[in-house]
């Protein structure tokens, strides 16, 4: 492997890796955004300026700093600046409802809220009742010198992300430096990946989504560059454009992207691609097989991991020409645990060889933020003293030791890779409709991507005002694409609402109507 291009930094923090790259390759591009490239030297100077600004506002070790994410260099410099102060970053999406952002600010105990151009919203949020943080513009100019971070201890908080929660309130997942270092060691020191300073990484994820951690922190650890996609247009088209024009060599994507691009595979040729990686959703063998011709020289992997276990921690290396897995139902296996991680299944939710996938290892966080009851529900210790996290994913293990994803034991779904607890949508629908029975479900589009449906048991149409109500509480990807009123929900033999029958009736009602749904559902 190009050893001259790589820096060995086993066990060190992200900041030490980044600073070493800035020293060794100051002129190398670090980030290509807004039609220009910022070198490691320049980018490091921006991070230093941001760190100095935060320290002047009394940001210290352990503090949580909120940041309105934007696709500009200041956002990324702020994240590194926050970490350099010993603080933890909490990304916020400006497009999310104000109530939701306020809830996150209060729950995380955010001290300072950073913003750039869309400052108005940040200022409004900071003066809202229930929040007690200061807005701070992060548009800085580079400072001379090299970042000199506060010492990072393994138990220091690194970032805090909020994911959908079943009770109607998002839950915080804290990731510590211990977890992130374990992830970086696995990616960079295991010898599996040849990432080096000549690589160009795609960064297609919102920073509220932890797959972004791979796409911007891994390149900054090896002296490579990364290209965030602009948030202006249609995401999958922006991805296609950047893959080709920037000659991307490492691309981590959600499978939805290639589902959307499927009609155009014949026009895509990316011979420079070294690693084509997928994570976040079920990856279909047939689509991957067609995609593999667009990336003729790339190593292709299906990765798996919940936010609680730091980005991803299982890997399946897909071989060109391999047949679909006989037990996989068309889905590519999620493989085996990566270096330093352990995966096993527990069987109290199902019969036979199926079981709930549990994860153990340094990448797994300690528990949820300020949420001991949810923590005790899913974080536990085995009789032999092994700590583990219950993923809620149903799996089985084949004879070769590969893990196969079979579905969920609960009502969590993935929409374009985002985790969605269907109960959260139902909670906010009930808060609008009163005592009505409601069911949130998903259906697959022709492109194979999932979208949300909402059923309401009612004699009368109740749509007026409901969509606006949901938009006040839920991010855009959780808003149902269709709201359907059903006069009476069918019951199962236990007298409970039969969610599957509701969906089945809906799909049957579509037959004869224009063909736009596929008979595939999850309720």
């Amino acid at each position, binding site marked *: 492997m190009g050893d001259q291009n790589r820096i060995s930094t086993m066990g060190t923090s992200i900041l030490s890796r980044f600073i070493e790259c800035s020293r060794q390759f100051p002129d190398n591009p670090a980030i290509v955004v807004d039609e220009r490239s910022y070198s490691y030297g320049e980018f490091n100077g921006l991070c230093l300026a941001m760190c100095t600004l935060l320290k002047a506002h009394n940001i210290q070790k352990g503090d949580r700093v909120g940041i309105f994410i934007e696709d500009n260099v200041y956002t990324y410099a702020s994240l590194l600046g926050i970490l350099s102060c010993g603080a933890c970053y909490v990304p916020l999406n400006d497009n999310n409802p104000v109530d939701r952002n306020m809830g996150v600010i209060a729950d995380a105990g955010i001290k300072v809220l950073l913003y750039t151009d869309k400052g108005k919203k940040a200022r409004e949020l900071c003066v809202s009742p229930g929040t007690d943080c200061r807005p701070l513009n992060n548009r800085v100019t580079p400072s001379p010198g090299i970042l000199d971070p506060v010492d990072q201890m393994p138990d220091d908080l690194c970032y805090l992300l909020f994911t959908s929660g079943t009770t109607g309130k998002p839950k915080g997942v804290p990731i510590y430096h211990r977890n992130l270092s374990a992830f970086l060691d696995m990616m960079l020191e295991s010898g599996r990946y040849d990432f080096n300073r000549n690589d160009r990484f795609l960064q297609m994820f919102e920073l509220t989504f932890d797959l972004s951690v791979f796409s911007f922190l891994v390149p900054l650890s090896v002296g490579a560059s990364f290209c965030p996609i602009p948030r*202006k*247009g*249609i*995401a*999958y*088209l922006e991805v*296609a*454009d950047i893959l080709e024009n920037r000659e991307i060599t490492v691309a981590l994507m959600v499978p*939805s992207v290639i589902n*959307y*691009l499927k009609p*155009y595979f014949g*026009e*895509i040729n990316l011979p420079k691609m070294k690693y084509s990686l997928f994570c976040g959703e079920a990856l279909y063998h047939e689509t991957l097989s067609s995609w593999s011709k667009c990336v003729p020289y790339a190593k292709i992997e299906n990765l798996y991991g919940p936010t609680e276990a730091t980005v991803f921690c299982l890997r399946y290396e897909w071989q060109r020409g391999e047949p679909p897995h006989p037990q996989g139902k068309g889905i590519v296996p999620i493989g085996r645990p990566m270096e330093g991680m352990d995966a096993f299944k527990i069987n109290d939710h199902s019969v036979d060889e199926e079981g709930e996938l549990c994860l153990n290892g340094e990448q797994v966080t300690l528990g949820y933020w300020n949420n001991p009851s949810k923590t005790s529900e899913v974080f536990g210790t085995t009789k032999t003293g092994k700590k583990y996290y219950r993923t809620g994913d149903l799996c089985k293990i084949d004879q070769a030791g590969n893990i196969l994803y079979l579905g969920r034991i609960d009502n969590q779904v993935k929409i*374009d890779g985002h985790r969605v607890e269907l109960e959260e949508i139902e909670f906010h629908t009930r808060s609008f409709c009163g005592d009505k029975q409601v069911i949130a479900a998903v259906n697959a*589009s022709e*492109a194979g*991507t999932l*979208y949300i449906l909402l059923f309401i048991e009612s004699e009368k149409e109740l749509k007026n005002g409901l969509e606006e109500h949901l938009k006040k509480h839920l991010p*855009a990807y959780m808003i149902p*694409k269709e709201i359907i009123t059903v006069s009476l929900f069918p019951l199962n033999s236990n007298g409970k609402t039969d969610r599957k029958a509701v969906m089945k009736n809906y799909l049957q009602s579509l037959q004869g109507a224009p063909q*736009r749904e596929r008979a595939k559902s999850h309720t």
Partner: protein
Amino acid sequence: MNNEEITVRLKTVFQKVLEEKDITITREMTAQDVEKWDSLRHIQLISEVENVFGIKFKLREILHMNNVGNLIDLINAKQGAKVA
């Protein structure tokens, strides 16, 4: 078919896919102007436009489509090519 006729037919496509009865089509309009216009609806829009006008877009053409005006011009050019 002239641009005006294309716009009228396009409006029907947009009304159907974006589920907005009162949608007004302008040349400057982009996905950012319509809340429901996301990746899923975009792919549905392209597919519906292809069906209605009997044409097929290339990825490169879709990538360079910056607004509805570009889409109208492209439909016009493709229709012209078909007639010729």
